[in-house]
């Protein structure tokens, strides 16, 4: 049986199904717990489920805890051989509203692969800012106005959050590199305990792209150093995706409606410089440049 099927309701060109199908191919038949959000809405309408794996959606902020419940139940019922447990949760569900249950799940050490689908805002409700929205980004709750130039503050460092919980496996990935997603998912489940993979996934409507732009833009996020692809095993950085001739962040930003104001707004220049600094910092920290 297919693990995830056609006929789901994602916008044409959405990155989420690319992430999901490649994670599932990497881990094989498994249990899925999903938070409320775009993925849930496009895949779990009553009588029209796109899932070929046992799947549960409870509420917005509890997928990590629901997955923990599946794990302990399988243990108690002596059914651990049925397959691994995977969470798919949005960036909002992960970094904002569900961060408490996520920390609890990490802390208790449940054998769960937690996948954060990072489309950098609350897309299901129409593009409101989340803790993973990047600096300066336009969202409907961080609009660019006379005095504001989009989101204030930085993108939350959830990799550090995961590492602080001493997870055996922590990685970032991007839908621009699906084979890498598959490999990382497969690798992750070789570790016992909680695992965290954060996958950068363009939202065509929220980011202001057409379907054909989605993958190239996601690729640029990696090639500019803004979204470094890193992999930690037992706290050690074991792999990074190197970047040849790192591109300026402007190239990434200019293609997306959500950043366009930065090139007109009086404060925009400052923000772009700030973002470039973040990219340069990433390059230095992870040794991205070849």
């Amino acid at each position: 049986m297919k693990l995830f099927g056609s006929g789901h309701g994602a916008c044409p060109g959405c990155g989420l199904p690319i992430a999901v199908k490649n994670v599932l191919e990497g881990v094989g038949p498994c249990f899925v717990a999903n938070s409320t959000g775009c993925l849930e809405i496009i895949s779990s309408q009553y009588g029209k489920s796109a899932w070929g794996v046992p799947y549960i959606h409870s509420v917005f902020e509890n997928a990590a805890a629901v997955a923990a419940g599946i794990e302990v139940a399988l243990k108690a019922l002596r059914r651990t051989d049925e397959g691994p447990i995977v969470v798919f949760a949005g960036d909002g569900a992960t970094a904002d509203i569900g961060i408490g249950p996520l920390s609890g799940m990490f802390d208790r050490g449940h054998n769960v692969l937690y996948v954060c689908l990072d489309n950098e805002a609350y897309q299901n409700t129409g593009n409101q800012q989340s803790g993973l929205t990047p600096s300066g980004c336009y969202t409907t709750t961080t609009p660019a106005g006379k005095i504001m130039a989009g989101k204030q503050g930085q993108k939350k460092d959830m990799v550090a959050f995961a590492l602080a919980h001493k997870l055996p496996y922590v990685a970032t990935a991007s839908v621009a590199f699906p084979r890498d997603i598959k490999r990382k998912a497969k690798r992750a489940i070789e570790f016992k305990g909680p695992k965290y993979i954060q996958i950068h996934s363009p939202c065509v409507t929220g980011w202001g792209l057409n379907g054909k732009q989605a993958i190239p833009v996601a690729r640029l996020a990696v090639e500019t150093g803004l979204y470094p692809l890193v992999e930690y095993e037992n706290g050690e950085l074991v792999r990074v995706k190197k970047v040849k001739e790192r591109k300026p962040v402007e190239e990434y930003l200019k293609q997306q409606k959500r950043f366009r104001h930065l090139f007109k707004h009086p404060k925009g220049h400052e923000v772009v410089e700030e973002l470039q600094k973040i990219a340069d910092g990433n390059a230095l920290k992870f040794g991205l440049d070849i």
Partner: protein
Amino acid sequence: MIRITPGAVSKPLESLKVKTGDWGAEYPVIEEEKCIGCGECEIFCPDLCIELIEAGMEKKGEKEKIIRVAKVNYEYCKGCGTCSVVCPAEAIKMELKDIYRGELK
């Protein structure tokens, strides 16, 4: 009279009933001669509607090799164009559906 399950539990893969093929304005056309059967488009297609199919055999020295080409299931293709941009052989072109051509006049 409708039938419902306790707790709204759904059966697997019933999304296949939903034919999303009429969503898009464009559709991909694969030039089989250019297709190198690498499977990039299949891996990327968000709607899981590209498959590599066998299109014959090829002699490579002593050995015979199966030739694979990408095939689109238009029942579900939303015409997003992702396949066309990721294809390393530039074998996929997006074309406007006939019904949309009229409107452009």
